């Protein structure tokens, strides 16, 4: 299921503004890669360029290549909609569809695409996805109730269930726990640890302990100043980044000496 991603010489623009400059990194399959760095350094922008969500914003564009198993996602004949079916995404704020029930939310990727699915298959997919998201036991008796009636942490796991119901290869998470309390955060972190056996996971986080807990590799983004493009400072095994980073800026940031 999981596949590797190689970004090469990636420049990301909003209009004429260069937001992220010259990123080259490899993301291993069946692993968790964490992206850390100060606000505005382009972590989220980079993440959104991995499933072409970036270009939803008017004027946004990308130079360079993002290859998934050798296939350039920005190739001329690649359909961004198809890319997003392979590379799922979970957002900062839980965003279940307010008009849909819990089960309908899980099936959203299928139903919204007008795909036919038999009732039995739909039930199986709902149960399987919710089990994968560690939510099944909490919601199995109220699948027909609105998804927005759940707690924040449950909503976020519902969003993860919704993302994996499409059966993507890669799962992108943009600060998935920043709106959650510590217990819900722990539930999501456990879930990430389980999911990495099947998916390639990239997670953006402001919480360095979280990066240290959940990730195999960590990339540190930084920017030289306001108005300057963000850059990837270094990426390495998480233990190396947090114990003996090669760059002074990384060490300053993770030890809290960063201005």
């Amino acid at each position, binding site marked *: 299921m999981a596949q590797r991603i190689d970004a090469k010489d990636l420049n990301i623009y909003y209009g004429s503004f260069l937001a992220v400059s010259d990123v080259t990194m490899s993301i291993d399959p069946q692993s968790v890669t964490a992206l850390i760095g100060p606000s505005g350094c382009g972590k989220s922008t980079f993440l959104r360029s991995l499933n072409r*969500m970036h270009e939803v914003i*008017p004027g946004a564009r990308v130079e360079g290549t993002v290859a998934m198993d050798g296939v350039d996602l920005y190739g001329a004949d690649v359909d961004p909609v198809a890319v*997003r079916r392979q590379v799922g*995404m979970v957002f900062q704020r839980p*965003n279940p*569809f307010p008009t849909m029930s819990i089960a309908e939310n899980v099936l959203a*990727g299928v139903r919204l*695409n007008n795909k036919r699915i038999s009732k039995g298959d739909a039930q199986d997919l709902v149960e399987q996805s919710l089990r994968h998201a560690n939510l099944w036991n909490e919601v199995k008796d109220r699948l027909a109730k*609105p998804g927005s009636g759940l707690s924040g942490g449950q909503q976020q796991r519902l969003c993860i269930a919704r993302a994996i119901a499409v059966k993507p290869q890669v799962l992108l998470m943009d600060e998935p726990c920043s709106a959650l309390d510590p217990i819900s955060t722990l539930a999501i972190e456990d879930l990430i640890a389980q999911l990495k056996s099947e998916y390639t996971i990239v997670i953006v986080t402001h919480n360095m302990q979280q990066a240290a807990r959940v990730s195999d590799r960590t990339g540190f983004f930084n920017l030289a100043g306001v108005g300057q493009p963000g850059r990837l400072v270094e990426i390495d095994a998480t233990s190396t980044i947090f114990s003996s980073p090669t760059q002074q800026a990384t060490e300053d940031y993770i030890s809290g000496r960063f201005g």
Partner: protein
Amino acid sequence: MPATTTLAPVTESSQELRRALTAVDPGRRRKDRAMRGVIYGAFALAMIPLVSLVWSVLTNGLGRFDLYFLTHSMRNVFGGMDAGGVYHALLGTVLITLVTTLISVPIGILTAIYLVEYGQGPLARAVTFFVDVMTGIPSIVAGLFAFALFYLLVGPTRSGLVGSVALAVLMIPVVIRSTEEMLRLVPHELREASYALGVPKWLTIVKVVLRTAVAGITTGVMIAIARVIGETAPLIITVGVTDSINRNVFEGNMMTLPVYVYRQYAAGLVPCAPGDASCIATINYDRAWSAALVLILVVMLLNLVARGVSRWFAPKTRA
């Protein structure tokens, strides 16, 4: 000492604090009371015309308001005859409003989708500008426009369709404006959530954006209908008048409720022969009031339906 337990001993500083916390600002109290009075007064003032309107329509209109009135036209009714009804006008109003809605709602919603989801640059700005201009078109001008349009296309003609086009000119900008606002209220996160599942943009718009906003859009459409259902002047030009039932919106004059009210009221008192018991002098006024009551009831019924639809489709948050 009050019964409540005081944990800390009462000291000089705590008494000072108590004074500070319980001090009354008489100026603020006075202002609060004055503003409260003004606001209640304004509310009462606004209610006077509404209550008075409903009261006079009910007292004057209920007299002739019955099943006979609703199911008979004015065909072969003359003088002070105790007969005649509103059926042909009710039918005309319902049909013309229906056709107007069928023209306006697709155009209005599609334009709003263009403005919110696709439009950028000079074209979108131009559309927004002309929608604003359209909102201000006087209804009589819309009537003349529709009449002239059909005159140029097919020669002099009056029909329900011409009236519907005139009313559509008035209704489209209202639909666009309200739908646009409702679409802008749909959080961008929902669109992104849908895109991230590999749903194409057009399906996202149809199944997420419109679906989330449908309650508000319905309300907006109802307001737009209420705006045009009472129009009189453009319909006199484009649809004309008749005393008979005409179910065909594509041909021939039709009657509508506002025009019916106007015509009946304009006819005035009937000069009855002295001693003629079957002649009712005020029959025209009575019919006008009852027709006005029918019109109000139609609008109210539409509003109730719209509320039902909104409630049915509104996003549910409670588990």
